[in-house]
């Protein structure tokens, strides 16, 4: 793989910018909004409910501007957006940005007024959770004080939820985005290779964590914490770490589970690989085989135009025919907190009617349980929806790696 110095990538093109803005404007027009407003959102260090949510808080801003922090007013009628930011400089997409002055609330209100939105119907993205984005953020991602100030200063405007206006634009990926996700998936796979190379009984877990992260960052990924679980089987749920753990050493008979993420072009790719430090017990093998078959069957059913209901039922019922249990675990990939979200916790029921579409990218990692329920396993990676079904973005083989 290319090292960072040899990577020729300078951000998304102006064509990509226009494609994104046009999609958002089209969605806003269909919904009858005069503009789409991305207000100041809470920062991820403070709203850190999960890694996805931390990254997802300001994701609409990054999608529309390639800036880390900004508020955006995108008029539906095709006029140029007004972007307010506390950053020093704009970028190729937005050479001119309006500096945040005095307070975000005041600056955003002034920008809305300058755009002629005093009496407009304003679509606000991120005000509450969506189907395609911000699915985990039950209370949305918007900063309180600045937004309250905007409402106060524009009493005659109507503010309504428009999370799906941007969400659906983010749901389907362009060729440029798919290329970035492909590279990200390859970097994440390289991180997994590093883990397999180093994980041995006696290895310090903090060192292992560090080396895996180092390998991915040195291939050009932004730093995105790996979720690392380890421990003996049968002792309940494995503890999860998102920083290098201190004072923990891998032991023979340990299970390792992980979510290995790499970020390229701002998009989060994820690959997942269970590992066992020992010979895999025979009792686990049927569930591991089930998981593999379920994953491949799932790829065949990721067909554009179909609602998720069919896919959910296929996966959730897959184990039953073999006397085992299976559960769908998957969600969208992109700038952070991408949906739709299917987890054992939420079962994804609200997403049954959402359509699978061409050029969506998901992390697909269904869970298989043994017949007696004492063992479960999940393996997965990034999958692109094509006309022919799901295509893994990086070639790997489902299963559990045994290190003896």
């Amino acid at each position: 793989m290319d090292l960072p110095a040899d990577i020729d990538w300078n951000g998304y093109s102006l064509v990509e910018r226009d494609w994104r803005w046009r999609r958002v404007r089209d969605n806003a027009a269909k919904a009858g909004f005069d503009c789409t407003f991305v207000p100041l959102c809470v920062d991820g260090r403070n709203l850190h409910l999960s890694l996805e949510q931390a990254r997802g808080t300001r994701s609409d801003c990054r999608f529309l501007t390639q800036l880390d922090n900004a508020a955006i007013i995108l008029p539906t009628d095709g006029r140029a957006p007004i972007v307010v930011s506390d950053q020093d400089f704009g970028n190729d997409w937005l050479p001119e940005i309006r500096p945040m002055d005095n307070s975000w609330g005041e600056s955003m209100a002034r920008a809305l007024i300058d755009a002629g939105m005093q009496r407009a119907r304003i679509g606000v993205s991120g005000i509450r959770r969506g189907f395609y984005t911000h699915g985990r953020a039950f209370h949305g991602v918007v900063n309180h004080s600045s937004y309250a100030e905007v409402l106060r200063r524009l009493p005659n405007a109507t503010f309504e939820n428009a999370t799906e206006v941007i969400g659906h634009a983010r749901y389907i990926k362009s060729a440029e985005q798919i290329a970035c996700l492909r590279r990200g998936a390859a970097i994440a796979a390289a991180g997994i290779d590093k883990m397999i190379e180093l994980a041995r009984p006696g290895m310090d877990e903090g060192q292992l964590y560090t080396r895996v992260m180092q390998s991915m960052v040195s291939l050009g990924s932004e730093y995105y914490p790996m979720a690392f679980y380890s421990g003996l089987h049968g002792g309940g749920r494995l503890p999860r770490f998102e920083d290098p753990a201190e004072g923990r050493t891998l032991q023979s008979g340990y299970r390792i589970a992980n979510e290995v993420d790499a970020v390229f072009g701002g998009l989060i790719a994820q690959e997942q690989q269970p590992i066992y430090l020992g010979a895999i017990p025979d009792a686990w093998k049927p569930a591991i085989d089930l998981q593999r078959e379920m994953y491949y069957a799932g790829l065949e059913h990721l067909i554009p135009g179909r609602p998720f209901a069919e896919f959910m039922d296929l996966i959730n019922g897959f184990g039953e025919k073999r006397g085992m249990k299976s559960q769908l675990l998957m969600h969208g990939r992109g700038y952070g907190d991408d949906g739709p979200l299917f987890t054992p916790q939420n079962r994804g029921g609200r997403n049954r009617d959402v359509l699978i579409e061409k050029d969506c990218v998901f992390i697909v990692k269904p869970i298989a349980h043994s017949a007696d329920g004492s063992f479960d396993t999940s393996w997965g990676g990034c999958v692109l929806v094509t006309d022919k079904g799901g295509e893994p973005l990086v070639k790997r083989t489902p299963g559990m790696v045994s290190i003896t």
Partner: protein
Amino acid sequence: MPWTTPPGAGATVHIWNGYSLAERDRRWRAVRENAAKAGFGCILVPLGNGIDGRYMTQLRCSAMVLPADGRTPIVIADRRSSNAWVPEPWQTGREWAEPMAEALLDLGMERARIGVAGLSGGAVTHCSAIDGVVNHGALQRVMGRVPNACFEDATDVIGLVRYAKSDEEIALARESAQVASAGLDELIKRARPGVDAGVLYADVLARMLELGSEYFPLTLTIDSIDAAKPKRYTNPPLGRRLEPNALITNEINAVRGAQLTQVCQPILLGQIPEGWKTVVALQRDIYEAGLAMIKPGVTFGALADYIDGFGANRAMKTIMQMHGCGYGDDGPLFGARAGAGRARDLPIKKGNVFVWRPLAMSDDQMVQFSWGGPVLVTEHGAEALFKREHGMVAIA
């Protein structure tokens, strides 16, 4: 009614939580005292204010209602998390507004004056978040459920407790400073012409992680020494090898025991031009002079006036550049872009820990130099928590 673990709660995420119960009681007592002085019935740390939440609970994610009258607080957490400080928090999943509202009602705050931490930027915490850090959807719902209460900003109620560090915190700030310094050493060791800047970035980060730092972005500015707008990176640079005469300015951040510290020292891959030497010398002098002036009781306004006026005698410019160390976004924040007017009258206190890195510039501002790291305020003055030789590192 306590909220209990919802079905299918996510896996517990383990984080460092090593402060003692005595430290917990010190923090809670001091916050209660500040709240009582300000006339609040309780302090609410709402969803969105994760940094104060961690300071008050040592939990990765939490919301909290702390009554000012000494009663036990109600803490809300997720993913089955708990610790020695908070053995039995209320548990939630993704729903935070309802338990926050119920906690306020359970504690009798229906008509109280409720101090909300993080509603706006404070004098010494949440300094870069002018409009605060609170989640709108959640707070709006809480206010709707407790309509007769009065919600007001109380950022400084917690902020002024975070401002002065305990012995436990200072010990960890020292460790953190050592880790940051080791990161800087790694940068100096590896930075050479031809080196892949992205790999260098990864190596420096890895050095600090292996020494036990939590992740915090490393900032490198890499460009030719005479570049007008040098390029700044908070992620591994792409398409970039270090070239001769490259100037690498840096902010090397480390976190131990939740204490974020920073060291910085510019590195030049070449000979230091004569024009820079006078600016570097001026920076050394303001660094030392400022350090000598930092004592308990001195106001930040007095210190800023002294530093900002220091360069004029030498026909150069100087600016006070500093910020607090701690759980994150600590202040007061002074710099080229931030004047920290709110903190001008605030006196320096024993137990403060700051990153002290004043900025010296040539008169035309084309040459700018900053060097420094964390310093602790003791009763006798300032003590640097890092040991480095002043100046620009030149790698020929």
